[in-house]
């Protein structure tokens, strides 16, 4: 089943950096996943995060407040 990945962030440079990393990892490793960017602050707050960007994989918050490395994202998506 394809994974549902959500990137929470209001569009700051760090959020864009995270989106870039995640998309690279997915294409490089042919991972079956659906990436969605959540930019609406009211939606973001439903996840109870205090620092953006945050990475949500199948409704679990995995990373928040920082830009992860490719290897880290790959670990999470395996």
């Amino acid at each position, binding site marked *: 089943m394809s994974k549902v990945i959500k990137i929470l962030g209001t569009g700051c440079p760090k959020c864009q950096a995270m989106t870039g990393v995640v998309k690279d990892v997915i294409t490089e490793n042919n991972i079956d996943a659906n990436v969605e960017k959540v930019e609406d602050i*009211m939606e973001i*707050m439903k996840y*109870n995060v*205090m*620092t953006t960007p945050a990475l949500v994989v199948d409704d679990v918050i995995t990373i928040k*407040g*920082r*830009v992860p*490395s490719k290897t880290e994202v790959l670990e999470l998506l395996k």
Partner: protein
Amino acid sequence: MFDWLQHFADWLIYSVCGIGANTHLGTALNFFIYDTIKILILLFIIVFIMGIVNTYLPIERLKNYLNKNKLYGLEYLFSSIFGAITPFCSCSSVPLFIGFVQGGIPLGVTFAFLITSPLVNEVAIAMFLGMFGVKATLIYVSSGIMLGTLGGWILGKFNLEPLLSDWVKNIMAQKNQQDYYQEEKRTFKQRIPEITQNAWDIIKGVLIYIIIGVAIGGAMHGYVPENFFNKFLGGGQWWTVPLAVILAVPMYANAAGVVPIIQVFVAKGVPLGTAIAFMMGTVGLSLPEATLLKKVMSLKLIAIFFGVVTLAIIFSGFLFNMIL
């Protein structure tokens, strides 16, 4: 500590480029090279240290700590200190605000964080260290933290909850779904690359402002006559402080660009207190921040918030000019 850098700047400008040490251009370029590199080194060190502190003391920890302990007023100070060490990004001020009030943190304590966060940040500290030295930096940082503490405490005295936006009121009503914080289990070594990367990213982001700021500052040094500002800003007239702050608030500038210019003002006769107050006005309060905050609070509350902080900055400007 930076002797070697001065030698390098001398060598680069006077020997390699062959511009004379006694020419206007030579000294200006020498200043520029020396100041820019020094600030970049300081910035990297400070961001790196703060990165280490932050990875072990994430904001969720403060939230839980404030929530669980009775602190008899110290919570304002803690919140303000945390605001100083947390890297500021205007885009995370709204999530932080919601996170705090959602976690049951009083509004005043939340404001203490919100005031200090942009006021005292890694870029401002590095710029101050580089341009004014250790003593002025300590004064800047401690007064920024005091200002947040006091401002938060004063705002906490008003009954401001009704002035929050409906959305926030709803969130507050359904309070606290999950209040646990999961510690990251990565080792120090695993965290280092990301901290370093983050330090580089911050430097890349402000590099252009540092270069422009130092260049303008350097140019002004050469062309603004000594004691130029004494005539109308340095004479110690009481109204210069409020004027500087009121001019500064609508302006929004990166600390990296402001400090080198302020340094010229001080060198040419503006009292340090007035200059610090001006700087706090530019970095601490801004229109973009107000627009973001509109999501969580009414215009009236934003006006009260800005008003209290502006007054506090003016007050601290007076205080500096008296004691410095």
